[in-house]
C-alpha cells in the first residue's frame, strides 16, 4: 500500500450488505481536500484535478455467487439488477457476474457516495434474497470501468477517486483478478509475477508478445490509458397509450378511426426503435363496468398499420360490447425484432397480367387484388398464409384452426391427431417423421368419432343399404394394457348405393359389427 490516504478500504461483511453499507460512511471525504492535503501537489495540479472532476466515476458491483448459475440465468439476473440500478445511475454496463454504473453524475443529487451505496445495497440485497442467493456482494469505485471491476473482484471494496492513484491501488491486487486462463496464470507465476505491481515493472512490448494484446489492453483500460467501450443496459421498450373519447360510442365502426390513429402512433414508435410486435392488448373501457379486452396475436412480428387494422376489424366484427365505450387503451405485450425483406424485382402481378384473361370481370378482380398483395408480408413466403390464419383465429377462436398429424399407433382412433396450428416452422421435419409410420392396409379418409353399430337383417349387414364385404380382414389387437381392449377384424365394404365403408367386427363375446369410416 503505497498511498493509504487516497485508497480507502472498506471492510467487507459477508453476512449482509447492510452492515457493509454502514461502514461505507468512512470513505466520505471531500474530494478537493483529498487532493490538496494528501498529495500536497501544486495549486496548478489541484486545479487540473478539479477540472477533471467531471470525468466518470464507476461503481462496480460484483456478485461471485452468480458464477454457479447457468449463463442465460446469469444474464437474466443481471438484467433485473440493471433495471433496479437505473434508480441511481443512467449508465449501467454488463460484465461477467458484475454490473458497473457511472455514479459521478448522480453524486450531487443523492448527496454523497455512501447514500448511493446504501441505496444500492438495499435494492440488491432484497433482490438477491428473493432469488434465494446469499446476499453479499463485492464492490469498488474507481475512475475506470476495468479498474473498478478488478478492485471489486479482489474483494478489497476500495474507493479510488483519482486516476493517478489507480496504479498503486491496483498494484496490490493479486493476478487472479485478471481471470486469465490456466496457461497464462502458469506463465505469470513462472515469471515471478504475483501481483499487478509486478506487471507494471515489465516492458509492455514483451508482455504484448507473450500474453497478447487483449491482456495488455485490459491493464491499460484499468489504468485509464485507453478508452473503454462498454455494453450498456437498455431498458426494455414499453408502449402503453390511452385515449379518452370525447363522447361515448356504441358503434364499434366509429372506433376504427381512433384505433387507426393509435396504431399509427404505435407503428411510428416501432419504426423508430426498429422493432415489431407480435402481441397486443387492445382494451375498450366502459363506464361502471370492466373493460373489454381484445388480445391480438400475430404469427409474425409486424409493424404494419394496415395489417393491425385488418386484424382489429376482424375482431370487432365478432364482438359485442356490454356498454358504450368511454376510452380505449393499447398496450404492447410483446416486442420482437423486426425482420425486413426486399421486394422482388419482378412482382407476381406482372406475371398475372401477361396471361390472357377470360373476361373483363376478372381484370377488375386483378386490380382489387392489389390490396392483398400489398407488401405487408413477403409475397413469396408463408406470410400470406400466416395472415390468413391470424384472421381465421381472430374470427373463429384460437382453437378452431387445426393441423393434423399421423402417429405410429395400431389403434385406428389414435393414429390421427389434431393439434392447434402453432409452432409450424418445421413442416419438413414433421413429414419425415410421419411418412414411414403408416399401416400397409388401406385407411379411409373419414373416421367416425364414435363407431356406429350396424344392423343385421336376414343374415345381411345393413347401414342405410345392404353391405357387401370387399376385402379383409385386417386384425388389430392392441391396448389390452389400458383396460379398453381393442380386438377387431377390419373389412373394406361397399354399400349398395356405392358408398365405400370401413367396418369392423369385434372379436369379443358378442361379435357385433361397427362402421368406423368412409373411403371417400
Amino acid at each position, binding site marked *: 500500500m503505497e498511498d493509504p490516504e487516497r485508497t480507502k478500504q472498506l471492510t467487507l461483511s459477508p453476512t449482509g450488505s447492510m452492515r457493509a453499507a454502514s461502514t461505507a460512511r468512512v470513505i466520505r471525504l471531500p474530494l478537493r481536500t483529498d487532493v490538496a492535503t494528501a498529495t500536497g501537489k501544486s495549486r496548478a495540479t489541484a486545479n487540473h484535478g478539479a477540472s477533471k472532476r467531471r470525468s466518470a466515476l464507476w461503481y462496480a458491483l460484483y456478485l461471485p455467487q452468480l458464477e454457479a448459475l447457468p449463463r442465460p440465468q446469469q444474464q437474466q439476473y443481471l438484467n433485473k439488477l440493471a433495471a433496479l440500478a437505473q434508480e441511481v445511475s443512467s449508465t449501467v454496463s454488463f460484465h461477467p457476474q458484475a454490473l458497473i454504473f457511472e455514479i459521478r453524475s448522480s453524486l450531487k443529487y443523492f448527496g454523497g457516495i455512501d447514500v448511493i451505496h446504501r441505496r444500492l445495497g438495499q435494492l440488491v440485497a432484497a433482490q438477491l434474497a428473493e432469488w434465494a442467493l446469499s446476499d453479499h456482494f463485492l464492490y469498488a469505485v474507481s475512475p475506470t470501468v476495468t479498474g473498478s471491476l478488478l478492485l471489486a473482484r479482489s474483494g478489497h471494496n476500495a474507493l479510488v477517486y483519482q486516476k493517478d492513484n489507480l496504479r498503486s491501488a491496483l498494484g496490490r491486487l493479486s493476478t487472479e483478478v485478471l481471470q486469465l486462463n490456466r496457461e497464462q496464470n502458469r506463465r505469470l507465476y513462472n515469471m515471478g509475477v504475483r501481483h499487478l505491481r509486478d506487471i507494471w515493472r515489465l516492458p509492455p512490448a514483451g508482455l504484448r508478445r507473450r500474453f497478447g494484446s487483449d491482456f495488455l489492453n485490459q491493464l491499460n483500460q484499468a489504468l485509464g490509458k485507453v478508452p473503454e467501450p462498454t455494453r450498456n443496459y437498455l431498458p426494455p421498450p414499453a408502449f402503453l397509450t390511452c385515449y379518452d373519447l370525447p363522447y361515448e360510442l356504441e358503434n364499434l365502426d366509429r372506433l376504427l378511426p381512433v384505433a387507426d390513429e393509435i396504431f399509427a402512433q404505435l407503428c411510428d414508435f416501432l419504426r423508430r426503435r426498429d422493432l415489431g410486435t407480435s402481441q397486443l392488448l387492445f382494451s375498450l373501457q366502459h363506464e361502471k363496468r370492466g373493460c373489454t379486452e381484445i388480445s391480438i396475436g400475430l404469427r409474425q412480428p409486424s409493424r404494419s398499420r394496415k395489417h393491425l387494422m385488418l386484424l382489429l376489424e376482424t375482431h370487432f366484427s365478432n364482438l359485442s360490447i356490454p356498454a358504450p365505450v368511454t376510452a380505449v387503451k393499447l398496450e404492447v405485450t410483446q416486442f420482437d425484432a423486426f425482420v425486413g425483406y426486399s421486394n422482388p424485382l419482378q412482382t*407476381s402481378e406482372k406475371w*398475372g397480367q401477361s396471361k*390472357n384473361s*377470360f373476361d373483363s*370481370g376478372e381484370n377488375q*378482380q386483378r386490380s382489387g*387484388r392489389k390490396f*392483398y*398483395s400489398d407488401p405487408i408480408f413477403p409475397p413469396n413466403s*408463408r406470410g*400470406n*398464409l400466416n395472415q*390468413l*390464419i391470424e*384472421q*381465421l383465429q381472430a*374470427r*373463429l377462436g384460437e*382453437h*378452431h*384452426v*387445426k*393441423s*393434423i*398429424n*399421423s402417429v405410429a399407433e395400431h389403434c385406428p382412433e389414435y*393414429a*390421427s*391427431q*389434431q393439434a392447434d*396450428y402453432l409452432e*409450424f416452422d418445421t*413442416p*419438413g421435419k*414433421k*413429414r419425415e417423421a*410421419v411418412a414411414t409410420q*403408416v399401416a400397409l392396409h*388401406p*385407411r*379411409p*379418409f*373419414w*373416421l*367416425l*368419432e364414435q363407431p356406429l353399430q350396424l344392423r343385421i337383417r336376414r343374415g345381411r349387414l345393413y347401414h342405410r343399404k345392404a353391405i*357387401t364385404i370387399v*376385402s379383409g380382414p385386417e386384425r388389430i389387437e392392441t391396448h389390452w394394457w389400458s383396460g379398453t381392449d381393442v380386438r377387431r377384424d377390419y373389412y*373394406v365394404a*361397399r*354399400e349398395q*348405393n*356405392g*358408398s*365405400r*365403408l370401413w367396418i369392423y367386427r369385434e372379436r369379443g363375446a358378442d361379435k357385433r359389427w361397427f362402421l368406423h*369410416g*368412409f*373411403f*371417400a
Partner: protein
Amino acid sequence: MSVIRAPSGTPGPTAGEACTHTQHIDELLHGNPNLWRGCDMAGQGCHGRSTGFSQLDDILPGRGWPDRGLVEIISPCWGMGELQLLIPLMRSIVEQGKWILWISPPYLLYAPALVQAGINIGQVLVVKLDTSCKDALWSMEKALQTENCGLVLAWQNYLPGRVLRRLQLAAATGDTLGVLFKHHDSKYSPSSIRLQIKGSSSHKGSFTEAEVTVIKARGNFRPLTTHIDLYQQV
C-alpha cells in the same frame, strides 16, 4: 371445320399453302381462350391441370381442373370416392408448396389416409367441424383470396347463387381453386364445374369404379358421363 374461301381475284392456293393457312388459322383460334367453339371439346387449349384420370380429362374442357374457380362435386352420400377424385390434384398442389384448407369436414379427417395417398400433411389445415355456416363461408372466402392456399375444400349443402358467385370471385382474386361438396344439385349455380359422382350402377358391387357426370362445365355444352377407376390414376 370452317371453310376458307380464297379471295376471288387471286389464284387458288396450292395444297401446301392451304395447309399452312389452316395451321395459322387453327393457331389463332386456339390461341384465344375467349373464343368458344361448340364442336371442339378440348378447344380451350391445354390450360387445365390434369385430374389424373384420363377418362375424366377427356370430358372436361381444358382437359383437367381449371386453375382457379369453384368446383362443385355432388354426391348422394359421403364415401362415393369424391375425395379420391381429388387426390392427384391435392398432390400436385402440395408439391407446388401451397396449402390445402379443409373447412368443417363432415367427419374426422384421417391423417394416415392422406399419408398413404402421398400428401404432405404438414401442408394441410382443418377448420373444425362445429363452425357455423356463416363462419365457414367467411373462412372459405378469405382462404380463396389467399394465394398460398392452393385448394380450399368445404362441405355445404344449400347455398344461394349470390354466395357462390362471391366465392367464385374470391377464387379468381386469389388464383385458387375451391371445391364444394354437396348432396344436392342446384341448377343455376355459377360455379365453373359441377360434377356428380355415383357408385357405378352397371358394375354391380365393383368397389373401385365410379360414375362421374359433368353436369356443367364452362366451355362445355352438354352433360357427359364417364366411368373411372378411382385407384388407377395416370
